[in-house]
């Protein structure tokens, strides 16, 4: 009755071909990375032990563990969060709740996009020029963390703004009708409904911040330090820079050690990122409105 014409068949064949080749391209995009990650796991896995994580490097960094670098990364991320989360949330509240739709708001959005797009090494130069030299923090955790905070500010702003905008307008209107001010509405209604969404942004920032290398190279992270940092004006080692150092700067490095460092770093980054994605999915499934 409805027999396929030759044109139908040709179209159908084309369609299958296109679908198969696009699927193949997607696979080819993902496959190499999966292979690379498996190699990291295969070669780096045996290196990782309790001692590797909680001991200091010895023997000119060719043996021992990565504890000072691990601790340094945690410190850098914490200080960066303290600086960027309040600022980023304030910026997102302004953009979502107050900003009029005009050229100035467009300029802010453009600045946010640019802040995310400026090369990391330019952020490093800014950190050196502003925090290390002009504000006289020296090469320190403070200078490095502030550089990281500015670099990853867009992550917090974008995630927070999205979750604020996901709160239905009717919630706000109901609150205003009760006589609440704008801030009371934001504090009692909008923020509580958006807080988990903001958290996904913060976790994402942890993931981004812990992997960055170039911005901290000249602002506060050191190749090797015999002592742990005592305060925010001390230098520190960091996991990302440590990977660079052990894979390029140290002679006679045993082959597996850098794999171990790479594996720890990428685990932190990917676990944090997955956590953020999982939280986002859980939220989407649970939404009441």
């Amino acid at each position, binding site marked *: 009755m409805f027999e396929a014409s030759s044109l139908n068949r040709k*179209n*159908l064949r*084309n*369609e299958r071909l296109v679908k198969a080749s*696009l*699927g193949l*391209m*997607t696979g080819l*995009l993902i496959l190499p*990375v999966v292979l*690379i990650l498996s*190699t*990291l796991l295969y070669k780096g896995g045996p290196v990782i032990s309790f001692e590797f994580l909680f001991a200091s490097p010895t023997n000119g960094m060719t043996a021992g563990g990565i504890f000072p670098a691990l601790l340094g990364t945690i410190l850098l991320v914490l200080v960066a969060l303290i600086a960027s989360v309040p*600022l*980023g949330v*304030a910026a997102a509240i*302004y*953009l979502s709740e*107050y900003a009029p739709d005009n050229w100035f708001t467009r300029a*802010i959005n*453009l*600045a946010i996009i*640019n*802040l995310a*797009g*400026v*090369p*990391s*090494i*330019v*952020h*490093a*130069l*800014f950190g050196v*020029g*502003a925090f290390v030299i002009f504000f006289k923090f020296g090469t320190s955790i403070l200078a490095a963390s502030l550089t990281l905070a*500015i670099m990853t500010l867009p992550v917090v702003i974008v995630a927070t703004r999205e979750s604020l905008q996901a709160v239905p307008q009717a919630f706000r209107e109901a609150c205003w009708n009760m006589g609440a*001010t*704008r*801030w*009371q509405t*934001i504090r009692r209604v909008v923020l509580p409904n958006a807080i988990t969404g903001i958290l996904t942004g913060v976790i994402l920032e942890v*993931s*981004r911040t812990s*992997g*960055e*290398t*170039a911005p901290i*190279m*000249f602002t506060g992270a050191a190749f090797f330090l015999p002592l742990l940092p005592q305060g925010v004006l001390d230098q520190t080692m960091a996991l*990302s820079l440590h*990977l*660079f150092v052990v*894979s*390029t700067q140290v002679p006679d490095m045993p082959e597996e050690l850098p*794999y171990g460092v790479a594996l720890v*770093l990428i685990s932190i980054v*990917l676990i944090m*990122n997955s956590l953020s*994605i999982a939280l986002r999915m859980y939220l989407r499934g649970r939404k009441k409105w």
Partner: protein
Amino acid sequence: MTKEKVPARQDFDQLNRDWFIDKAVQVLVFLGGISAIVFIIGIFVFISREGLGFIFEDFSFTEFFGSPNWRPTSESNPTYGILALVAGTASVTGLAMLVAIPFSLGAAIYIAEFASGKKREFLKVTVELLAAIPSVVWGFIGLAIMNPIIIQTFNVPVGLNVLNAGVILGLMAAPIMTSIAEDALKAVPDRYREAAEAMGATRWQVIYKVVLPAAKNGLLGAVLLGVGRGFGETMAVLMATGHSINIPTSVFDSVRALTATIAAELGETAVGSPHYEALFTIGIFLFVITFIINLSADLIVRGVRKG
């Protein structure tokens, strides 16, 4: 003064006080809002502050952009030509785009238009995770995994070259480009697809004749952002290009990128020396170029939203 004399809370004019807090908060979040603009201007001001000394003293436009000789440490006659560094950055970014553009657009079309349900969700999450891998890890992959593979496969003496860095950078940029391109395809209204399907078009005809033309600005924006990212990438190109100054004639030549030069040399220069200031001048150049790329990407994407 006794405790009883302290006025109770309700004695304040409640409305007035809340009004005041409201205004104060408004000012505070406004300050947060403009912080991004302040930082962008701040970045430009502070790198210029360090770099301007060079531009006014040792800078020669023709030497800086026209000479392939980057010899800042030469005692007798230091030269500051970034031509070879620009060629290094351009060759690596160009190759990276050759790798990343077809694959990321292909993957974006597949994810947005063909995959559905669980599969689509899985692919999206995977792409997002791939985008999160730090650049220093990519550099390490180039160094430890790609390097021996290239030496063996092509029988060349050095595996740290344009090919290595280009492929690494392509793999790095592709997930981000895929995400943005997928968003652009999803932004095409479903009624466009439905209208075309009602005319008897196959899935691929709908995509090719309707969805792609409608999303073309968004896709172009995705490509531009990929270029910007490749251009500004630092650690991966520092570790995978071989870091030797060359105007490349084949993909097996080692090169050196603009970003990598700053990363490698800034630590060894004295603050305020011409070499140090020249590195900041490269920074100004990088800042301006990426600013232009991001601005045009934004304008192009915005163009499609209006239309």
